[in-house]
């Protein structure tokens, strides 16, 4: 045991030997003042990037929305224009309607899949999970293009139905609200499934078992146990789908056709065709404020529902 001590002992260190910038705190642990700041240094590159390419541009954009071309002082003129113009108001209304429909479709379709994924132990579970998530890798263009092939006038469905003689005129499936809602539902469905899955996994399966033992049928178990307990998940899935749809650009642009204008596509046109930056900024801000309001409502609602359900 002597050698162990001998080989390992080193001269002791004490506070006195530390450099002059050392401060001995009342806790007896010395620290260097510069260390406090030094620990923030790695944050500089990401923060500068976010500042230059996000925070400053956002600030400028908000500022610009109050300064229509030629105006020297801040004015609400452009906002007034936005909320009095029938064209922009129709676009806003269309955005809300489209997003609402998508929110409902996504949640209704995602719920059974999420329930299956949360409860099943069959070997199909992995298959369903992979199929549900895989389209996310494909990107929006491929999927939208696929729907275009399926839905357009000479497309899969219409030519099939005409060949069967069921219809003589092609059904208007693409280049309208229907096509956009189908396309967006497809794009957002995986997110809806994941969001509801988290919520359903939070419901203890023994609750369902005890309800069954008490004589509840499958339907009543769903109606009285599972659905009420996953209301927060349903709400957050709907809000997620709503915000994702309202800010989607590519799907409405491709599947909606030339006349289908929502806020996102209108913003793009203002910037690149009309080159009215101030009005583009107004539209972008309206979209942003809508998102923020929904996010705020969503988080408050979720908190309240959560409190109610989890004591």
């Amino acid at each position, binding site marked *: 045991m002597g050698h162990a001590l001998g080989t390992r002992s080193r001269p002791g260190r004490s506070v006195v030997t530390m450099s002059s910038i050392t401060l001995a705190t009342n806790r007896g642990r010395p620290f260097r003042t510069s260390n406090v700041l030094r*620990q*923030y240094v*790695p*944050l500089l*590159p*990401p923060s500068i*990037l*976010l500042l230059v*390419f*996000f925070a400053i*541009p*956002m600030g*400028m*954009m908000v500022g*610009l929305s109050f300064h229509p071309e030629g105006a020297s002082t801040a004015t609400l003129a452009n906002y007034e224009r936005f909320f009095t113009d029938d064209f922009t108001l129709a676009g806003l209304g269309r955005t809300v309607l489209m997003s609402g429909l998508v929110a409902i479709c996504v949640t209704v*379709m*995602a719920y*059974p*899949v999420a329930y299956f994924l949360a409860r099943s132990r069959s070997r199909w579970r992995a298959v*369903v999970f992979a*199929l*549900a998530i*895989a*389209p996310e*890798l*494909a*990107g*929006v*263009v*491929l*999927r939208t*293009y*696929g*729907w*275009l*092939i*399926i839905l357009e006038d*000479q497309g*899969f469905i219409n030519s099939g139905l005409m060949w069967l003689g069921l219809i003589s005129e092609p059904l208007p499936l693409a280049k309208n609200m229907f096509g956009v809602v189908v396309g967006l539902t*497809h794009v957002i*469905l995986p997110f809806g499934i994941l969001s509801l899955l988290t919520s359903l996994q939070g419901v203890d399966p023994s609750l369902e078992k005890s309800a069954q033992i008490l004589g509840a*049928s*499958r*339907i009543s178990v769903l109606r009285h146990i599972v659905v009420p307990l996953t209301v927060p998940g349903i709400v957050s899935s709907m809000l997620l789908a709503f*915000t994702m749809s*309202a*800010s989607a*650009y*590519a799907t409405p642009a491709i599947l909606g056709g030339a006349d289908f204008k929502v806020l*996102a596509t209108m913003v*793009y046109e203002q*910037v*690149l065709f009309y080159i009215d*930056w101030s009005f*583009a*900024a107004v539209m*972008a801000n309206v*979209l*942003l404020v809508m*998102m923020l309001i929904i996010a705020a409502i969503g988080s408050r609602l979720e908190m309240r529902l959560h409190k109610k359900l989890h004591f």
Partner: protein
Amino acid sequence: MNRIVSGLFRVSIVLVMAFITLPLIVVMAASLSPSSQVTLVPWEWTVRWYGDLVARRWIDPFILSAQIAVLVSLISGVLGLLAAYVVAFEKCPGHAAIMSFLLSPLAVPQIVKGVAIVLFLSSAGLYRWVGTPGLVAAHIILTLPFAVRMIATAMFNFDRNLDRAGQSLGATKAQRIRHLLIPIIKPGVFSGMTFAFIISFNNIPLSVFLVRPGQTTLPITVINYLEYSLDPVLAAVNVASLLFVLAVIFVFEKIGGFSAQIHGGSK
């Protein structure tokens, strides 16, 4: 009664799965069909559209998109690592506020971010940045929050006792970061980078504002074509780029995923 319900339940899942897979199958079939009329009959299929992909009008956008995605993925990984280290590992004072700042771009729709950046570049006299530099910067703004969040999660899950064990065995801070922290959070870093790559490679809403004429990314090239043609070559482009993304994920997983060592058997 319960039987009917289970039956309906199963049917609804099959229908949703069909809905999810249908467009993918259709695009696949379209890329192999001899004409713009899509056929599902395999013996009529041809790969001639894939031959057309070597044309410069497809190769150039592909190379640009891939270059941007690689840069975005690498930079997001490095910056995400730096930020997550301070916020999630060191947990410096104010880390919660800093984290919300780093994640704040998530609250803003892409199209709004795109407008803001293009307006900023124009007003600040940096219009020459529109093109590759602007695309890279804008994509990083989009991907960095995801990278930070994934890497931060990996760091939160890192067992502090491992660091303490390293300390009690005489490892300095630099040694502990190199030998313990980095190898253990590597899967988190790589999944963040993979995510950044996919988002960047497929991006439309930001790129649409920042591409230069004659120098566009692959998705933008495709949607520009889509407006006036349903040429089957577009299907081939889409399938090829999906295969490319899958290959990249496979490579990232090979480099970054060492889950088998930790969770698996005796090597």
